[in-house]
């Protein structure tokens, strides 16, 4: 891009020199005419084309319509010179609309550049896709972009741009991207040594994981690991420190990624994350004078607080955070006040304990009068989400007072919020009616239809409210100017319930009529129509004012508005029917209660604001509709509960049914596992690339399993990741003590310790998943040999004790028994040694001298579980040489233990099955 274009510089200078708009236009028209002619004549060299197209672009940027240069731009793209290509691509991305026909012409050129050996060309092509990204491009090119992202030969620049280009294509055309298929390979890039690459791919994953949390589940531990390396270990290239803060943008992305998942139950990750968050909070205690440093630090801090709130609102971390936030909301710096209020609103929406926030109610209310509307909005959101039964009168009162002076832009939202809070936390009918009517009269034009509909619904459904509402609305109507929505509510309520107060002085039918009708002339046709309906109801209940009412109908029979005229005619006819006629009465039956329905107000508020990709569970949908998630504690019943607002659509994405990884199959996989079920150490898995070995010890209900993973190759395994899946989380916990390093050097071995605790009887051993990059992305998934008998410890019993217990436990279901074929050893005898090895390997104490038959075995033991306590277990094994069969009997105080142990002990003793189907069955 070195060569400056003199003609362009002159053109720009001329335009800047133009004193008035007309001169500028004149200059531009002249230039465009000249360029059009040059293009028409053809025969331009690359430099000339570039120069003219650049002038066209500049004209376009100024805001002029341009209709030339498209073809020349397409030509420039195919140039081999960078500067010409760059201008060509710039023109394509700026001048061409996403659906332009010209874009079809460039798809092939872009593909050519994507596949070029020159990485600079790859990058230009990626920029174009990332900036325009039409559907056609997505369909034709996403495979190529993905290839550039994962190819080991791609330069870092190409990979960064490919990741973000893919993100753009996914956001625009999600259906084109085979996310599931690509997920693991993409996640593995999070381990890349280049932080720029990690940042881009994390942005990509953040978007993909919102829609496909399961497929990207492993990104959770990678994010924790990376944060730990950045924040705690200070492991990053110096150039990625921004004013001494390690790559704050990446930290923010990672902290957000963690908020898209339910909190992890892996203790190692929990502790690690705890330390990370604590460190981030501590870092902020050293204020600096540098604006950039502070901003970067706070960017990370606020995200960390959000994550801490997401994980557990009752944690000490959140307490620390609450103290910080309190300081922030009265900060001198506007940005900090803004963010403090914003984050506090998040906390208020999530916590069960509003106490800490309520302490600052005064400060927050003052923020409603901040000099900055952005801050005022945040204060409004916060007041909305911190409102509960105890402070609702105060907060709603403040909001009402503020409403009268609030910015016009804020009022509609305020009205909705006040209406919702009033309804939700009303403690007396009187308060509800007073407040909502004051709202209607104060807010005037900013009251959406939903608000007064809702008032009518509630009054109709709440009998105790009706007379009082009628009186209050009547008083409001008496004031000289009342807003139209108040007239509507008044018309409706007096029509239905005016008769309830008609006998009291000052509320007589004629007074009601006069007050209401005096408003009619200031109202729009729909309101007048509503008033006509009120009058026909009154004809029914207030015969004394019938002449006046009929008079109104008569006059309205001649108005031009069709709806009004029709109503008037019908009502007129209805009113003049003979008195004994029942039609009028039937028509004017009292309105039945409305069926329970969701508040239209909430829908309105949510609709107003929803437009974001962010699907974090708590995400404020748009500008702060922090709907308080009803907490268990606060659920005091409120008076007005006519309509079910139990609609908690705040989606919880905790997907407990974690998908089980597909197990790696292989001829020896089962054999290795079965052997390790009754031995402590040995090989669990081996192939040409890696070997996995096990060493284990158990004590009571806990155990420690050392997993040794060796790289057998002469190349390193990168993006090396280990993960555990337990299917019975309440019964068995298993977790790594630390996260594995992300690279496994050639011909080396690492040791990963798994802590195990047996809480209850379980059946399914945890699954170990080892994944890595070696050419392609690969994953090995095998079950760890952690079975219930690992928690069995032998006990010595004498014959009397043994038989007593044996009898006490008794037969099925606490007995599990089976007869199975055995094979004899080389000499044709029962393999007694193996038999003893298996039985004692499973933890039994072999008891001698109880069974007189020397081939038979008797054993006893106790299974230790942390939650369900100890479970006794007795064994008897009776092999028969002649029949080549053996009988196993297990008796246990837990039937689950009996059946499980019986299967485990029998497995290695049974003869190789003749048919494949028999193997796992008993």
């Amino acid at each position, binding site marked *: *891009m*070195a060569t400056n274009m003199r003609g362009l510089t002159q053109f*720009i200078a001329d335009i800047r020199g133009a004193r008035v708009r007309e001169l500028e236009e004149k200059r531009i028209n002249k230039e465009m005419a000249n360029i059009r002619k040059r293009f028409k004549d053809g025969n331009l060299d690359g430099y000339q084309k570039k120069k003219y197209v*650049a002038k066209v*672009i500049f004209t376009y940027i100024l*805001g002029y319509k341009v209709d030339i240069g498209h073809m020349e731009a397409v030509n420039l793209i195919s140039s081999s010179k960078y*500067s010409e290509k760059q201008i060509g691509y*710039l023109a394509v991305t700026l001048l061409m609309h996403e659906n332009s026909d010209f874009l079809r012409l460039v798809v092939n050129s872009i593909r050519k550049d994507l596949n070029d050996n020159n990485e*600079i060309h790859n990058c230009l092509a*990626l*920029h174009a896709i*990332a900036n325009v*990204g039409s559907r056609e491009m997505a369909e034709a090119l996403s495979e190529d972009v993905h290839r550039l992202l994962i190819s080991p030969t791609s330069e870092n620049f190409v990979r*960064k*741009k490919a990741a*973000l*280009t893919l*993100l*753009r294509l996914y956001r625009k055309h999600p259906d084109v991207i085979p996310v599931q298929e690509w997920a693991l390979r993409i996640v593995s890039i999070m381990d890349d040594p280049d*932080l*720029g690459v990690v*940042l*881009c791919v994390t*942005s990509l994953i953040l978007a993909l994981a919102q829609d496909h949390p399961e497929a990207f589940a492993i990104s959770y531990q990678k994010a924790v690991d990376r944060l730990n390396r950045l924040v705690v270990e200070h492991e990053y*290239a110096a*150039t*990625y420190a*921004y004013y001494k803060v390690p*790559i*704050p*943008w*990446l930290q*923010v992305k990672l902290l957000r990624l963690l908020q898209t998942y339910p909190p992890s139950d892996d203790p190692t990750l929990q502790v690690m994350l705890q330390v990370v968050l604590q460190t981030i909070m501590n870092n902020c205690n050293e204020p600096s004078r540098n604006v*950039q440093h502070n*901003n*970067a630090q*706070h*960017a990370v801090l*606020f*995200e960390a607080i959000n994550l801490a709130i997401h994980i557990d609102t009752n944690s000490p971390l959140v307490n620390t955070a609450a103290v910080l936030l309190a300081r922030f909301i009265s900060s001198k710096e*506007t*940005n900090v*006040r*803004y*963010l403090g209020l914003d984050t506090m609103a998040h906390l208020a929406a999530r916590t069960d304990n509003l106490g800490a926030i309520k302490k600052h109610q005064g400060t927050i209310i003052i923020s409603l009068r901040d*000099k*900055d*509307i*952005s*801050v005022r*909005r945040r204060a409004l959101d916060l007041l909305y989400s911190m409102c509960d039964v105890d402070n609702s009168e105060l907060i709603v009162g403040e909001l009402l007072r503020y409403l009268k002076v609030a910015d016009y832009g804020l009022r509609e939202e305020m009205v909705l919020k006040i209406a919702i809070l009033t309804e939700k936390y009303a403690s007396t009918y009187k308060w509800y009616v007073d407040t909502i009517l004051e709202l209607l009269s104060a807010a005037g034009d900013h009251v959406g239809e939903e608000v007064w509909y809702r008032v009518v619904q509630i009054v109709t459904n709440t009998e105790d409210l009706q007379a009082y509402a009628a009186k209050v609305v009547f008083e409001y109507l008496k004031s000289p100017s009342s807003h139209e929505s108040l007239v509507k509510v008044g018309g409706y309520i007096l029509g239905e319930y005016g008769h309830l107060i008609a006998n009291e002085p000052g509320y007589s039918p004629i007074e009601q009529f006069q007050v209401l009708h005096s408003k009619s002339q200031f109202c729009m046709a729909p309101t007048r129509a509503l008033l006509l309906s009120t009058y026909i109801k009154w004809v029914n209940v207030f015969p004394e004012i019938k002449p006046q009412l009929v008079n109104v109908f008569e006059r309205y029979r001649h108005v031009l508005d069709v709806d009004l005229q029709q109503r008037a005619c019908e009502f007129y006819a209805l009113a003049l029917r003979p008195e004994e006629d029942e039609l009028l009465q039937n028509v004017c039956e009292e309105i039945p209660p409305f069926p329970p329905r969701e508040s239209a107000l909430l829908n309105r508020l949510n609709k107003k*604001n929803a*437009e*974001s*990709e*962010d699907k*974090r569970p708590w995400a*404020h949908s*748009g*500008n702060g509709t922090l709907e308080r998630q009803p907490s268990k504690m606060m659920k005091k019943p409120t008076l007005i509960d006519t309509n079910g607002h139990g609609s908690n659509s705040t989606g919880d994405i905790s997907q407990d049914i974690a998908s089980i990884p597909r197990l790696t199959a292989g001829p020896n996989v089962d054999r290795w596992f079965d052997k390790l079920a009754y031995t402590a150490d040995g090989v669990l898995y081996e192939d040409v690339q890696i070997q996995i070995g096990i060493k284990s010890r158990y004590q009571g209900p806990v155990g420690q399993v050392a997993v040794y993973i060796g790289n057998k190759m002469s190349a390193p395994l990168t993006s090396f990741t280990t993960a555990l899946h337990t299917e019975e989380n309440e019964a068995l916990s298993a977790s790594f003590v630390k996260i594995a390093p992300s690279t496994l050097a050639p011909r080396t071995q690492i040791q990963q310790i798994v802590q195990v605790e047996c809480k209850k009887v379980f059946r399914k051993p945890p699954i170990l998943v080892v994944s890595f990059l070696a050419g392609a992305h690969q994953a090995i998934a095998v079950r760890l040999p952690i079975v219930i008998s690992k928690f069995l410890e032998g006990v010595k019993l004498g014959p009397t004790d043994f038989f007593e217990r044996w009898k006490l436990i008794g037969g099925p279901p606490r007995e599990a028994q089976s007869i199975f074929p055995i094979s004899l050893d080389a000499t044709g005898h029962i393999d007694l040694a193996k038999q003893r090895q298996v039985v004692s390997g499973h933890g039994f104490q072999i008891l001698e001298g109880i069974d007189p038959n020397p081939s038979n075995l008797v054993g006893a033991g106790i299974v230790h579980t942390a939650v369900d306590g100890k479970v006794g277990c007795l064994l008897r094994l009776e092999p028969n040489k002649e029949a080549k069969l053996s009988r196993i009997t297990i008796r246990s105080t837990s039937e689950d233990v009996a059946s499980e142990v019986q299967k485990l002990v029998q497995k290695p003793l049974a003869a190789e099955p003749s048919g494949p189907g028999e193997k796992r069955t008993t």
Partner: protein
Amino acid sequence: MVRLRGEVHRLVAPRDQKYQSNFVEFRNHKIVYRRYAGLFFCICVDANDNELAYLEAIHLFVEVLDSFFDNVCELDLVFNFYKVYAILDEVFLAGEIEETSKDVVLARLEQLEKLE
């Protein structure tokens, strides 16, 4: 585009530098902006995006411009608008921040400058 630009300008320009934040709501989004003398740099982000991260991204971008043009001024940006786009493509892409190391970006720009 021109209309959008005008709308954002009207929203941001009158705001007070000292007493008002660098964030302002715009339709269903937020504008994060920073003022350098007479120049405003504005980014439109989602309502839930991290404001400060974008505020500093602006500063990073300005620092890159400043180094590249050696004490950047408005004229540099106008006369070299196509280079500004090229620089933009190195710092932001697809609406996300792409590279945050000034050294990496500047080295890359230097490499591109040398190309024909």
